[in-house]
């Protein structure tokens, strides 16, 4: 799969919410044709615009509440064609603060974005965002970083060899 973009999403000021930025920042020696981007503190409209600018598939690396143990990860195709999992846009309860990644992807798809969307989701170790006190990842998540980076590299390699 050529033209893959690996995009880290989140905020470094919201504890484990920033794990996607850390992981993508750690990626090096990427396969040919793969580029990495950090979409830090991007709101939903910005994420939608970023997606619409892409001409190839994207792997979103983000903190995600998936009902797993803290620090566990899953990689899955998440667009409407996805068979493994899907993002859940809050179609009715969407608000200024509630416009998130799921809504951004749904909006991009509604506007014609038809490239595959994959998610490398990491379950947070912290129970929720701690905006005032928690700059940086939790100690438990930091301890998981080496394993997560290995998992992300594997996911990128797998996607590069997958059919478009």
């Amino acid at each position, binding site marked *: 799969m050529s033209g893959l973009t690996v995009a880290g999403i989140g905020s470094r000021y919201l504890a484990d919410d920033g794990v996607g930025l850390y992981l993508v920042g750690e990626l090096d020696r990427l396969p040919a044709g793969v580029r990495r981007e950090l979409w830090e503190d991007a709101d939903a*409209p*910005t994420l939608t615009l970023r997606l619409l600018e892409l001409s190839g598939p994207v792997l979103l690396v983000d903190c995600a509440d998936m009902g797993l143990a803290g620090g566990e990860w899953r990689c899955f195709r998440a667009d409407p064609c996805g068979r493994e999992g*899907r993002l859940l846009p809050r*179609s009715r*309860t969407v608000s*200024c603060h509630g416009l*998130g990644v799921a809504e951004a992807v749904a909006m991009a798809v*509604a506007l014609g974005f038809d490239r595959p969307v994959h998610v490398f*989701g990491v379950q947070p170790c912290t129970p929720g965002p701690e905006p005032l006190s928690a700059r940086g990842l939790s100690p438990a998540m930091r301890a998981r970083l080496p394993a997560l980076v290995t998992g992300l590299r594997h996911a990128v390699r797998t996607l590069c060899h997958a059919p478009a």
Partner: protein
Amino acid sequence: MSGKKATYTIDLDHVTRIEGHGSVRVSVRDGRVEELTLAIVEAQRFFESFTRGVVAHEIPWIVGRICGICCVAHQLAACRGVEAALGLEVSGQSRLLRRLLNESQILQSHLLHVYFLAVPDYMGVPSVLPLARSHPDVVRRALRLKHLANEFTRVIGGRALHPMANTLRGWRRLPDPDALADIRHRLAAALPDFDATVEFAAGLRIPQFERETEYVSLRHPEEYALYDGQVYSSDTGELTPVSDYRRITNEFTVPWSTAKWARWHRASYMVGALARVNNNFDRLHPAARRAAESLGLRVPCHNPYMNNLAQVVEIVHCAHNSLAMLDEVLDRGLVREEIGYTPGPGYGVGAVEAPRGLLFHAYRFDDSGRCQEADAVIPTSQNLNNIEQDMRAFAPSMVASMSQDEVRLHLEMLLRAYDPCISCSVHMLEVEFIR
């Protein structure tokens, strides 16, 4: 279907597309509204307590976290309150940059609210997502403008969200002149999108309900007051110093709300875009006054649903006024200024116009310069009482002429028209696995 003689209860539990949890309960018996309450069930935030014992210059950055949408307004109100307490001067350059920062945030907030939260009501869809399919050109324009406004805030304040460049007295890191010129160019290039926003909004069918109330906002002798001024009441036509804010807000509690309510010269008052446009129409940029005319917004306007269109008028004002201010900054050039201060005792009040209305912050410092006491009165808590009064005034005619679903929709739309920010919440990505 007519609602006459009907008996039913509407529980709008957790009204959507607003910030936080607000519920509306309406009991109708034999076609008459027996009970209507706007219940606020959010937990207390305790931000004022967080500032106790904190040194002065850290306060604006802490209280800015009250809201991710209104972070600039909270930061500016806090700066002004602390500066008043400590007798600190702010240069003309810093004042100009703060006005730009505030208007960039008003652009962000109004664009988000109008396009993403309010418009779906008028297009008969539950959210912006189906709108992207049915009106892709409108949503693409909304995305372009929102992104531009984000970039505008980032250039002036250092970050699009919770900017940190502004501090007491001035700027820690001045905006880059090339970035200022670039954002000025992009803002000018976007004027056709702002015009299209007015044209689109002019086609929205606004519900026809009117109830005169007291409109309260800042007023400034020369500017459309968004950053400073004195408090103006449409009831008296008089100006009141910001320092008398407790005499203005008269906060009180009601059993069905965890948020405090407010009243001044009558049972309730309104703050926000419509109050500002009503009180300061003569100070709007000429392009914004023309937009108001195109939108059919004639002052004084007593229809609270028109708050959405007043936001569009302010979008036009902020776009054009910011262009003029950017020209001034670029012509004048920016110079690094002294921003040091001496900690000490004092009490002061600051106020700015947040996107949702008048925002007060008050601080008291002890001899060591640490904060002893803080108070923040946000626009939504000032508006809640007025929203409920509107609902009580409009509900009988709604019940008499509309189906239950239409009553429900119009009450939700009324609440959303005020763009309330009942709380701030942060959500993580939710995923459902298909097994």
